[in-house]
């Protein structure tokens, strides 16, 4: 009975945005603004049901883990059963609420932000499709089902990054995003192959049990784990597959907030969190190291960016790195809690930047902003809350709780990772303060932009206020274990081994907390000092670091490197193979044909037309072959071979007749 209720709620959660997509896709143009509000309603419905599911989870208490289904999808043979099914546990419920809530607010925000766009209805259609796909992903109780949602969010991401695809930049960015994540998906496919081969079912619990029982032989468990992480790194823009996310900022800003900050890019983190019990310690080391290095490198690049959205994009890459660091070092709870808090404060800042861009008539360069706080106070103050949260200002912001958890987890496992993470934290606070100061404080640097700037309408500021409030209040939920219940009923300790115990011992170590606070507050103070108070001497301060700044501004030349070692060689290879195909493979065929013509002519036929010549060649070949074969057994071969030659003759006759 209870399960029936849960199932119905889940179905509404899924069906509402899907229905919204269909209606909006087909009748969107006729519905106009009403259609946009309709999608807000479907999203609210989805949100309401998600909240109800959350309430159900809370009231059920610890150990809430409901499986609905499975329903048979395909039985491909060898006794395997590929199902679809829904799994509701703490992790799912948190993700559901995060996705539907941010999505709902972004829908509302977009009703005004996208106003006047020629493809206004289509934008909401794809937002709906994205929400549906993301919810499919989150609700999945098995890896194949998850993979379907995973690929569909990729499609929606492609469509929405390239929303203005009459221009070249969004087109290229969309393609880059799709292809880069698809490279990561190869890892997922290898994992699926390995699981399909040795487990036969993709259901998480079955896979974890098989992994724990050693049913997946060496080295395939390791390879599957690395494959999953490769997929996660593609989706969540980790080194070395991070290059697509900054470019994805070519999409409309609400899309950046929803897909490329709060939800889809966190799917990789969710995947690793969900599959944690099957990851071997080696994989966890890779996860933690890649996460930490990404956090640092992306932070360095963010220092030297001037486009407001690009800074936020690199900060997203960096924060996702933190989440992986958390998962890798065994601070599972903190890593996923950071996913949650980050979703709110990063959506807040992205929508804030959208409000700025909207208010400044599509100006995105921070060097032309400044002093906007007086013009758009709500945007400025809510943005500041986001900055404080991402810096991890203690006790009042949610970012503090999650980041502290990750750093203390890292401290327990590896001092190197801890210091890298801490360095990243200083950077984060520093460049976010730079972003805030350049945009909202100081004197306006471009009179034109400043004069025309205005606060955004209520449909845009209210979502900002709601997200700001959430950013401030959800921190203490960090201690509510039910919300992020263990990922599986299988004992995680078995898979986590020593890492887990180490992390637990050092949790809430006082010194780590104070170091984290010092890093965040220190970074903020330094940023305020350098970019606001001592702005005049900024150039002098930067001079010794000019070389480094160039490296950061050029993003460590990742794009250039990939173009040189991957893209151009692939293109050259394609062209080369085309020449081989036309010259050699087909050349041989044509050469055979030509020699056939000559043989036909030489045989003394009077009709020298190519067709006839070739026909004769075939005849000769057939007869030769027929002779050879008939030597084997009997003379009948000739009968059938002559039959095919006869058919040919008939063909030619018909050709003449027609």
């Amino acid at each position, binding site marked *: 009975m209870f399960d029936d209720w849960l199932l119905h709620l889940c179905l509404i959660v899924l069906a509402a945005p899907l229905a919204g997509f269909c209606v909006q896709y087909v009748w969107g143009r006729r519905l106009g603004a009403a259609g946009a509000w309709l999608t807000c309603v479907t999203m609210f419905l989805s949100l309401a049901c998600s909240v109800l599911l959350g309430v159900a989870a809370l009231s059920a208490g610890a150990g809430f883990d409901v499986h609905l289904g499975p329903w048979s999808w395909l039985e491909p*043979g060898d006794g395997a059963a590929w199902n679809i099914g829904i799994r509701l546990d703490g992790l799912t419920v948190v993700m559901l609420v995060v996705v539907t809530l941010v999505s709902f607010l972004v829908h509302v925000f977009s009703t005004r932000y996208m106003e006047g766009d020629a493809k206004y209805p289509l934008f909401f259609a794809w937002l709906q499709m994205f929400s549906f796909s993301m919810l499919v992903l989150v609700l999945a109780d098995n890896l194949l089902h998850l*993979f379907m949602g995973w*690929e569909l969010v990729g499609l929606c991401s492609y469509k929405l990054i390239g929303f203005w695809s009459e221009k070249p930049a969004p*087109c290229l960015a969309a393609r880059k995003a799709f292809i880069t994540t698809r490279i990561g998906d190869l890892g997922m496919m290898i994992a699926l192959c390995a699981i399909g081969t040795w487990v036969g079912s993709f259901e998480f619990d079955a896979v974890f049990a098989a992994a724990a029982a050693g049913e997946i032989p060496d080295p395939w468990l390791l390879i599957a784990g690395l494959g999953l992480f490769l997929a996660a790194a593609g989706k969540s823009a980790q080194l070395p597959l991070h290059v697509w996310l900054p470019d994805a900022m070519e999409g409309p800003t609400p899309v950046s907030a929803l897909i490329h900050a709060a939800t889809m890019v966190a799917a990789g983190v969710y995947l690793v969190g969900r599959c944690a019990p099957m990851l071997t310690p080696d994989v966890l080391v890779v996860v933690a190291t890649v996460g930490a290095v990404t956090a640092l490198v992306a932070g360095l690049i963010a220092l030297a960016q001037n486009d407001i959205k690009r800074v936020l994009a690199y900060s997203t890459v960096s924060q996702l790195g933190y989440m992986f660091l958390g998962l890798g070092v065994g601070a599972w709870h903190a890593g996923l809690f950071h996913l949650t808090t980050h979703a709110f404060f990063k959506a807040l800042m992205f929508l804030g930047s959208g409000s700025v861009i909207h208010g400044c008539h599509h100006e995105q360069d921070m060097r032309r902003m400044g002093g906007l706080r007086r013009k758009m106070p709500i945007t400025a103050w809510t943005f500041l809350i986001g900055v404080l949260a991402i810096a991890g200002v203690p006790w009042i912001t949610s970012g503090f709780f999650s980041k502290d958890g990750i750093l203390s987890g890292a401290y327990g496992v590896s001092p190197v990772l801890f210091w890298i993470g801490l360095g990243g934290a200083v950077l984060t606070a520093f460049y976010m303060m730079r972003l805030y100061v350049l945009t909202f404080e100081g004197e306006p640097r471009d009179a034109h932009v400043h004069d025309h700037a205005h606060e955004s309408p209520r449909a845009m500021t209210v979502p900002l206020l709601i997200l700001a409030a959430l950013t401030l209040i959800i921190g203490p939920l960090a201690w509510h274990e039910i919300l992020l219940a263990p990922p599986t009923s299988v004992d995680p300790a078995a898979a986590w081994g020593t890492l887990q115990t180490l992390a637990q011992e050092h949790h809430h170590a006082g010194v780590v907390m104070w170091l984290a606070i010092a890093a965040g507050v220190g970074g903020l103070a330094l940023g305020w000092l350098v970019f606001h108070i001592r702005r005049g001497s900024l150039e002098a301060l930067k001079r010794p670091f000019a070389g480094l700044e160039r490296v950061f501004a050029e993003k460590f030349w990742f794009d250039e490197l990939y173009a040189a070692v991957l893209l151009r060689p692939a293109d050259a290879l394609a062209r080369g193979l085309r020449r081989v195909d036309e010259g050699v493979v087909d050349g041989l065929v044509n050469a055979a044909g030509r020699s056939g013509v000559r043989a036909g002519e030489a045989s003394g036929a009077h009709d020298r037309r190519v067709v006839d010549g070739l026909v004769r060649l075939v005849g000769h070949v057939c007869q030769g072959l027929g002779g050879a*074969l008939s030597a084997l057994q009997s003379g009948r071969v000739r009968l059938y071979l002559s039959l095919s030659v006869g058919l040919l003759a008939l063909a030619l006759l018909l050709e003449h007749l027609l």
Partner: protein
Amino acid sequence: MSMLTTIVFLPLAAMLLCWVAPARLARVINVVACSAVMVLAVVLWIQLDPALSGYQFVQTASWLPGVVSEQGIQYYVGLDGIGLALVLLTAFVSLTAAIASWNVEKQVRGYHMMFLLLLTGMLGVFVALDLFLFYVFWEVMLLPMYFLIGIWGGPRRQYAAIKFFLYTLFGSVLLLAGVILVVLKTGSWSIPEITELAKAAVASGGDGGILGSASLCLAAFIGMFIGFAVKIPSFPFHTWLPDAHVEAPTPISMILAGVLLKMGGYGLIRVAYPFFPQAAVDCGAVISVLSAIAIVYGAFVAMAQTDFKRMIAYSSVSHMGFVTLGLAAGTETAINGAMYMMLAHGTISAMLFMIVGVIYERAHHREIARFGGLAWVMPKYFVFASIAFFASLGLPGGSGFVAEITTFVGAFDGPHRLWAIVSLLGVVITAAYYLRTLQRVYLLETPEVYKDTSAYPDLSVREWVVLAPLALVTIYMGILPATVMDIYKSVVHETLVPLLSAAGSRFGG
């Protein structure tokens, strides 16, 4: 008269009707006949019991008694799940292609007569159970195809038609040699009987197979494999395909890619593999390598194409590589995946060729680089193009995904794991060339020439009626694959898999 005989010869009757009826009625007769075939195919689907792996609706009649054996050559037809799945595909693709042929203007009567004759040939291949009959239908297909390309094709139609004809005839000769060898050695023309003999041969533990000699079996298998590989077409026998496609008129390209290429895969599944399971297993590694090459190499060559239709043709080479990859792996999942790929590719490629045809009809060229921004001029057309592109690159929700993931998982489970992993690369390259083409043809700024809405109208009713069912079936097969796989699953499970696994376990465990 049995259902099967009716469905096979109904198009032939319609062809004769075309001959006597006024030329303007030809297209009506064609569409009506194809609709009737479609209805009959659905009736067969409803009536065929999927739980039985044997042949149903069997009809036999004496034809040429005393040839080789006492029974001799028979008219022998029957249908099992594999045949049914392909009959359904044939009926469906032919119906859409017949509708797509509505605006053919050149020698209308001849065109529709050839079209109907082709349909009889194709359906005949899928129901024939006598090797002679099988071969006759096989050759019957060749003839109308030759004319359809050679007369109604593009500028280089003669070259393409002759190349197609001779190349496939070369394959046919090898096939025929194999058939003759089998018939003479076993003394039977019946495909089910010879399959039983092969089963017994494997079970007996000897390695002589049905021909009494392992090396003879290997030679016969290789010959037949090449014969069918030309049709699939497998690397390196694929170069007739781009030429044939580029020159063929749109509906014929749809049939060529949608059905004719499946003949090769069907021949492997129905004849080559069951007759010579041992040789098939022994050749598994080579076939896997060739398949991986076809998938990756085909995708790369597709990427370098400048002609829209040639690109789609090479994507066919790449995708049909999955069929041989799955068969070579020999696991149940892989074979089911290979079979699913045939069905998925059948509908998706028909759709892709229609999409090329739509724009070729308006622009009279197919240069990818000269297009641009068509999405803004023809939004409905763009929706279908997107569906076809994304389904073809294996996005979940489309049938291509089911086929690819099933084949991958199954092939990974098989003895040639490395080549399954190499083939995965094709997935990325495929995405790269499809997205690039999507961008160059449909996105970015629209060049002035294409802004003229009278020269570039959105989809006509005819085009709608062709594309919409293809898109629906593609999506249906992506969302509810079990309903389609159930058609043929039991046959694979009970016929092909036991043979191959018995041969495989004898080979090396």
